[in-house]
């Protein structure tokens, strides 16, 4: 995750608050597609305020293209707020349902693996288990890798959801202190750039 791609692209986690209205998702998908990028993951649901929805969107792109995309998303009337959480302290989770073969010879191993990853068994048949597991991208990738030799029949993923760490009103600086030094350095350079941009955009 967040690894640099071949052409200077990397995955960005964008969190959008949008009007819970017809056509909004099509608008977002259209904007990202117009940049020539594919949406890696997408999750949409209502917020505490039923007239608004929260969207977590993961998309690969170069820094400048993502910056431009964020600005264009922000420009949409039906999009209330867009935050790029990629370099912010944040928690991300995805829920996955996995149906694996449960032959007598490997039933125990499947359960042991599930136990290590705190996955729940949500369906059992004589031939298969369905596990439910929640975690970040690394954990889910590791879990799938370990189950693969047993024979995975089907994987269904919700797509990533993400939330910023810390209190919503806390200044960004505090959140940043929680990061590892190297990561924090790179992030703080970006932060300075962003602060400069914010200076340029003063709400009326």
């Amino acid at each position: 995750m967040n690894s640099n791609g071949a052409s200077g692209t990397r995955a960005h986690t964008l969190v959008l608050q949008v009007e819970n209205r017809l056509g909004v998702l099509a608008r977002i998908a259209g904007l990202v597609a117009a940049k020539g990028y594919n949406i890696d993951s997408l999750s949409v649901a209502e917020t505490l305020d039923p007239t608004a929805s929260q969207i977590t969107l993961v998309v690969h792109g170069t820094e400048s293209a993502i910056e431009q995309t964020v600005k264009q998303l922000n420009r949409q009337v039906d999009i209330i707020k867009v935050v790029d959480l990629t370099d912010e302290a944040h928690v991300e989770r995805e829920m996955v349902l996995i149906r694996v073969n449960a032959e007598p010879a490997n039933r125990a191993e499947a359960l042991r693996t599930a136990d290590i990853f705190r996955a729940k068994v949500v369906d059992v048949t004589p031939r298969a288990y369905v596990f439910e597991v929640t975690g970040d991208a690394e954990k889910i990738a590791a879990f799938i890798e370990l189950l693969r030799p047993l024979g995975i029949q089907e994987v269904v993923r919700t797509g990533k959801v993400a939330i910023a760490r810390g209190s919503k009103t806390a200044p960004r600086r505090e959140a940043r202190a929680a990061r590892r030094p190297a990561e924090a350095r790179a992030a703080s350079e970006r932060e300075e750039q962003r602060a400069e941009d914010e200076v340029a955009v003063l709400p009326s």
Partner: protein
Amino acid sequence: MQLTGSEIFMKCLAAEGVTTAFGHPGGVVLHMYDVMLDYPLRHILCRHEQAAAHAAEGYYKATGRTGTCIVTSGPGATNTVTGITDAYMDSMSVVFFTGQVPTAVMGCDAFQEADVMGTTRSCTKHNVLVQNTEDLPRIIKEAYYISRSGRPGPVLVDLPKDILMSRGDFSGYPESVRIRGYNPSIHGHPGQIRKAAELIARAVRPVLYGGGGIIHGDASVEFTELVNLIQAPTTLTLMGLGALDTSHPLWLGMLGMHGTYWANMCMIHSDLMIAVGARFDDRVTGKLSEFGKNCKIIHIDIDPTSIRKNVHVDVPIVGDVKHVLRELNKELRKIKRDWAKEQEEWHGQIAEWRAAHPLRYDQRPDGPIKPQHAIAEVFRLTEEMDPIIATGVGQHQMWAGQYYRGRKPRRWITSGGLGTMGFGFPAALGAQAAFPDKLVITIDGDGCFQMTCQDLVTCVQYNLPVKVILMNNRYLGMVRQWQELFYGRRYSAVDLSVQPDYVKLAEAYGATGLRVERPAEVSVAIEKAIATPGPVVLEVVCDREENCFPMIPAGAAIKDIIDAGEPVPEKLFQGWR
């Protein structure tokens, strides 16, 4: 009060102050057109929906008031898509109302159904499908507000037939708008404005590069004040023409692909570029990797998306151009500096460029009419009448930009971003509808005019005395020019020598047709066209193969500009042989 959707619609338009709409009826909007008869709205029936869309754009550009366009579903709506996209690219405030099939059959391939929301999502500032009759007042209020505020743009409202016909509660037109996802920045950041002023105070080779944003933001007074304050040479984009009086001594002419040589030289030799309401279009920057390498850039724009989209900017200021310029001028007035003296060398250099590479053409008295001559004559003869000039797209448009003379904003209407052939004539129709007593001229090409000339009859019907100056070279001139310069003169699909008799065509529609073929008669013909009441088509039979120079070839750097008479470098050859 229980009213039908159509009645609510008409009441809302009246409350919004809409007096004129351009449109074309059809099946699903019959009910609305029936109700319309009982309201004072002036509906101008265009003969093609594309013309209605461009007319609404022309109306907006000439007046600054949002244009209104009403069409039916399906083909009515899809015919406006070119106009919608044109308005989107050039930030024109127009609200489009499209009929839609009844909600019950939407998505069922009903007769004259098109997914207009999906089709126009990427070419509107905002679009919305009305799902409840009672939402109409709020949606219409928001549509006009969104369209004209911030960076202006087209907004589309899709109106299903049943929404128009069913009854709903109407308690008046809302007085205010609150949209949580839409708050355009108006005031520039004071810190950034101070930084900009400091940069300007240090510059010895500044250039002001203004765009359409100055026109849309009604900021030409503030812009002119800035020019006078800092004594900087000033160029404008095609869309910005009119933001500065062309008789101003610091006026450089238009810049860009076919801009003046010296304006373009200023862009590459300046130490500070001050972009105001312009968006660094590729027709202005040329090759991006070579653009703005040796200068600092200040960029003032209301749309944060425009900032750093193509070009690195040192001091971005997001805000309404009028507000930002007021504040910036305030800062600059505090600075004690002999602006003109500090730039003496710079102005001297510009004068040299101007003398060495003037705009020029060779009009022989016995030769064919040079299009530049006719266009320059149009401006010379009408300048004092403060006309509104609209153009099509192509060579004639670029010549009109080069030879443009005007004192005020909102007198120049052209299609810049989308480059829509056929735009000029219906846009002029729209401007004339707004100002029936003003002189409105279209400088058009024969290729362009054939795309939308059907609306001559609309001009006749509504007594809109548009004067069409038709630059007829019987070619798609700009395409031919590229084929000549970059494709070894192999002309492919550009010959328009089989064409209608434009004099008879004008007469067939009930307008006046005139023709001029000799250079000596051009000015008399133009004067006659202007003096003739009603719509007039003056066909100017031009030199067929005149080229438009200077020219920065597409994708080339500004320094590679080709002036008239200079050879085209072999490396620019793009043909297949």
